[in-house]
């Protein structure tokens, strides 16, 4: 049952992850110094992970990926009118949402881990750049990676939460966006977990209390 549900969710969202992987790859290769247009290598004069270029690129693409996944898994069911089909399955509503969130979060975490590993692998390879590298330098990227789960959960919440006005509908996303930036910049790991727990609780609450008319 869980396998069927996860497989369905992955089948519906895998293309978003593949597009994101392509964008990550292009952007990461550019950061490494390879110009994809002219196919010429130009050495970069920044320290990998320490100079902030990777963080801003990675944060932007990851936020887009996370929001696309969250919206696709929630609002799409409303557009297609498939909520009744899904919610009439003989399982609890929390189970349906839990399965969706597991698939979406898992896909985000795996996909977004790829560019960090790629860039770190390149940075750790001797002779690729003229600066020191320690694996601990990737910690900031991993914290952004984790913090952006908040964007995914907020987009999911926006997708299932009924609201008449687009402004009030997007409110959770805007609020969470501000919080995620603060948490990622200040590296408050515990704050990220608390925010995610609050968002998951809100998703379960809305999913169980809203009307699917």
């Amino acid at each position, binding site marked *: 049952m869980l396998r069927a549900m996860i497989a369905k969710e992955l089948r519906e969202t895998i293309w978003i992850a593949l597009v994101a992987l392509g964008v990550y790859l292009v952007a990461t290769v550019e950061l490494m110094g390879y110009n994809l247009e002219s196919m010429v290598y130009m050495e970069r004069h920044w320290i990998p992970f320490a100079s902030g270029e990777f963080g801003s690129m990675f944060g932007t693409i990851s936020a887009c990926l996370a929001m696309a996944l969250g919206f696709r898994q929630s609002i799409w069911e409303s557009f*297609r009118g498939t909520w009744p089909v899904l919610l009439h399955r*003989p399982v609890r509503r929390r189970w349906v949402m839990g399965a969706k969130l597991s698939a979406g979060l898992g896909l985000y975490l795996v996909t977004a881990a790829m560019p960090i590993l790629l860039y770190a692998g390149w940075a750790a390879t001797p002779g690729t750049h003229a600066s020191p590298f320690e694996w601990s330098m990737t910690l900031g990227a991993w914290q952004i990676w984790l913090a952006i789960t908040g964007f995914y959960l907020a987009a999911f919440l926006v997708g299932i939460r009924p609201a008449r006005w687009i402004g009030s509908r997007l409110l959770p996303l805007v609020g969470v966006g501000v919080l995620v930036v603060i948490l990622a910049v200040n590296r408050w790991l515990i704050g990220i977990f608390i925010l995610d727990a609050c968002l998951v609780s809100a998703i379960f609450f809305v999913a169980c209390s809203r009307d699917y*008319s």
Partner: protein
Amino acid sequence: MPDVIVTDRLTKYYDRRPAVNHLDLRVPQGSVYGLLGRNGAGKTTAIKMLLGMVHADIGTAEVLGEDSSRLRPQTRARIAYLAEGHPLYRWMKVGEAVRFARAFYPAWNQPLVEQILDHFELSPKAKIRRLSNGQRAQVSLALAVAAEPELLILDDPTLGLDTVVRRDFLESLIQIIQRRARTILFSSHILGDVERVADRIGILVDGVLRVDCPTEHFKGSIRKLVLEFPGPPPQFPECVGLVGNRQVGRKLEAIVVGYGEEHRRLAESLSPRSIEVIEFNLEDAFVEYTRGPRRSLPIFVGGEPDA
């Protein structure tokens, strides 16, 4: 027979307007109940409240003996639901849709679903997005029935289907009903379909259940009196059961519910040249009944449930 569906003053408001208003509905086990109403009458909202998809503002609903807003998964497994428009995952193939649904039901009847798909000549390799409305309805029906439900709730299952497909769909439905004593609640505004399969009907008018009786009882209750006059016809006198009256040339047409001796006497008191009493089929009875002045609509909830 115990009642499979029981609602008590079930009410839902949208924008302070009642979409469903104090619905008291009883569907006996083994019956085929047709829930009728014009567009926006509240049929879909009522059905969604029965399935716990929409929360009632007032009142309660029990389905298979359980509060519909808190249906346990085990109870849900005993209820099949065909949503309006037959929403399915369009990227799936028919076989994938079957495998996905099968994963949730312990009592899944795979030979039955294969038999139904075979009957409708639907290949498991066919993409759902390439299927016609009728074929999607057939897939939905196969998926619903394969779970071996005790209760089928169908929301306008023949909407958008052409006549031939509709007839085929209904014949399959009749076979399913006959296979086991299942209870079926279905909404529709195609009256011919309802007449073919339902043994009891309910009519919702602006969210209010105005009729709840055996199908034959309803048809037999509505009459049109056609009174012909030598000159301009008068108005039909106000009386119990008068749904509406209109003048057509030198004729006066009056629609009455529960036609009886009093109506005949009133008609004769107008001294017409001739009086004709016309019986209706279900469709005409429904049309005449629902387009009359609504506030004066007579309510005959009850009837003879097992008649």
